[in-house]
């Protein structure tokens, strides 16, 4: 059984936000526009968080792409009163939109603020409407949504592999953000499969996870010389 995980090399990330855009297009993440930005209601499945440290002239800004961490011990699934967010056998933390009651308890329980709430009905500019992805359902107002590691791509890749009567290969299943990253900072694969690149990368001395001390066991690893 695979254990899907992601490695993001922060030393390669230049903050271009291509991952954000690729994710938005792939997953039909609504475009909130300036109003949502003003109200702090923009929905992000993948968000490049910029943090600036130090005082001028000793200033360093770091970019940190933040998808859902797909924790092995997710705090969000425990608190959901209706099993609308669950972790599957391969470690992907899913959100069940038709079941979510919109209480936002999972959003509060997530230490990474990886969950977004649909405060309003999702809207898409007319120009992007023909490009909506038919593989991903559009969420109604009033439910939580978040990164799924592009789970629909896994389903498709698996079907394809089965049709061709061959096992699933590493390159068959790659989320949109990893696909789009121009510097190759994002890699994806099975953390338990020693032949996958991610399994090797997490051995890197630069590897760390966000808020590791909380014991959530995230499956998103970061690589950085300096934390």
């Amino acid at each position: 059984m695979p254990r899907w995980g992601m490695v993001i090399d922060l030393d390669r990330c230049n903050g271009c936000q291509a991952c954000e855009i690729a994710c938005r297009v792939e997953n039909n993440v609504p475009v909130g526009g300036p109003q949502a930005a003003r109200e702090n209601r923009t929905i992000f499945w993948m968000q490049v968080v910029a943090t600036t440290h130090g005082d001028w002239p000793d200033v360093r800004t770091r970019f940190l792409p933040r998808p859902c961490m797909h924790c092995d011990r997710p705090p969000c699934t425990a608190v959901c009163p209706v099993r609308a967010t669950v972790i599957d056998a391969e470690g992907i933390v899913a959100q069940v939109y038709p079941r979510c009651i919109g209480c936002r308890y999972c959003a509060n329980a997530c230490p990474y603020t990886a969950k977004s709430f649909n405060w309003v009905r999702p809207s898409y500019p007319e120009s992007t409407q023909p490009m909506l992805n038919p593989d991903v359902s559009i969420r109604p107002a009033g439910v939580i949504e978040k990164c799924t590691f592009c789970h629909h791509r896994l389903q498709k890749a698996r079907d394809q592999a089965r049709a061709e009567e061959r096992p699933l290969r590493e390159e068959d299943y790659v989320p949109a953000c990893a696909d789009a990253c121009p510097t190759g900072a994002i890699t994806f694969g099975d953390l338990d499969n020693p032949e996958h690149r991610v399994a090797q990368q997490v051995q890197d001395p630069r590897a760390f996870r966000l808020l590791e001390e909380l014991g959530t066991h995230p499956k998103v690893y970061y690589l950085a010389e300096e934390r």
Partner: protein
Amino acid sequence: MSDEIKIAHLSQDERVLLRPLVRTTRWFWIWFALLSAVTAWGAFAYYLQLRRGLGVTGLNTPEYWGIYIICFVFFIGISHAGTLISAILRLSKAEWRRAITRSAEFITVLVIAFGAVQPVLDLGRPDRVLYVIVNGQPWSPLLWDVCSIGLYFTASSIYLYVPMIPDLARIRDLQIRPTWLYWFLAIGYHDTPRARQTLQKIIAVLAVAVIPIAVSVHTVIAWIFALTLRPMWHSTIFGPYFVVGAIYSGIAALIIAMAVLRRVYRLEAYFKNIHFNNMGLLLLVMSLLWTYFTFAEYLTAWYGGEEAELATLWSKLTGAYAFSFWLMVVSCFVVPLALMSRQATRGPGGTTIASAFVVLGMWLERFNIVVPTSVHPRIEMASALYHPSWVELSIMAATFSGFILVYMVATKFFPIISLWEIQEGREEAVHEVAERVASYLPDKVEVGT
């Protein structure tokens, strides 16, 4: 025969306490209209929210919870007025309870419904609220909450109803309208010594049973916050801290209700200065307990010095939420302590003023718990200040007015002071207490034996 004539020949207690059931003043209708208007306005605001979704609130990311959850904690806290205080006073045989238990129990039952509805108002998909039962996930503290509040509501309703049966039977026998209502509610009770004895037994059992249930309710509400890993929510003392705060605000709400009832129904003879004095002392004790818990909570966060905790802590002490924090300290500590530690200010006026501050302060306490933590997630991100929208404020106003409205109407159908318990006090308790005190003293030994 009009109902007013029916009670004209009764004893003084019955005449005074049944008068609100048979006579309604103009002022009642004026307040009734005013409160109905506010409640209707809130209902309209909720209709808009249903149509347009939670976008009409001031909530955002990461400020996921706001006014509704604050009011949820606040109103369920107020509900501890009745059942808990009344049960404790009954069990400890505090004789001064007789006049105040009924009004306290009514607060509990009515306010709990208004509190319990708040999380439903807060849902993104209120149409799916029953999923909590159909798809219930037993590890979720929200589910524990549904259970404990459901149990508390049931138990408090029974605990309100059972001690009211003798009064309902008396009203039925007096043929006060609506006769069918009292006939139905009195369930064929006849006030024989045996029936009274059975009733007393049931009340005693209920009084013991409701205490752990009441404690569980606010503990579980605290756990909703404390069981997450959020800074300044993740605290082991949140359970007892919330229970103490709940009892504190409950006592304050009860004092205000007593002061209002005393004035509008001319109940000075029943809600005496001694009642306010004693309630004031309870308020003082709870004020000190609350302050102790608050101090312990903040000291731990500060001394530990964890970065994420400090961000939330300083936003309360000196940052964006300093005003609401220090106003809370003044309202819940300085004012009640100053007023309630002097006998001269423990009269009806002083206790009511202190209580008004406590109610305000306890609302702010819940605000200070919910909002500053929300806007300081562990992963730094852009956050906006939370400004509740008019929809949220209207619904909050409607919750207050709706509660006052149903409480007002309840006093028109049910005696707000327990008739039979007052009579029992006059007939039996004086003698009983004298005997009890005598039993505490050393037995007299005849000299020379």
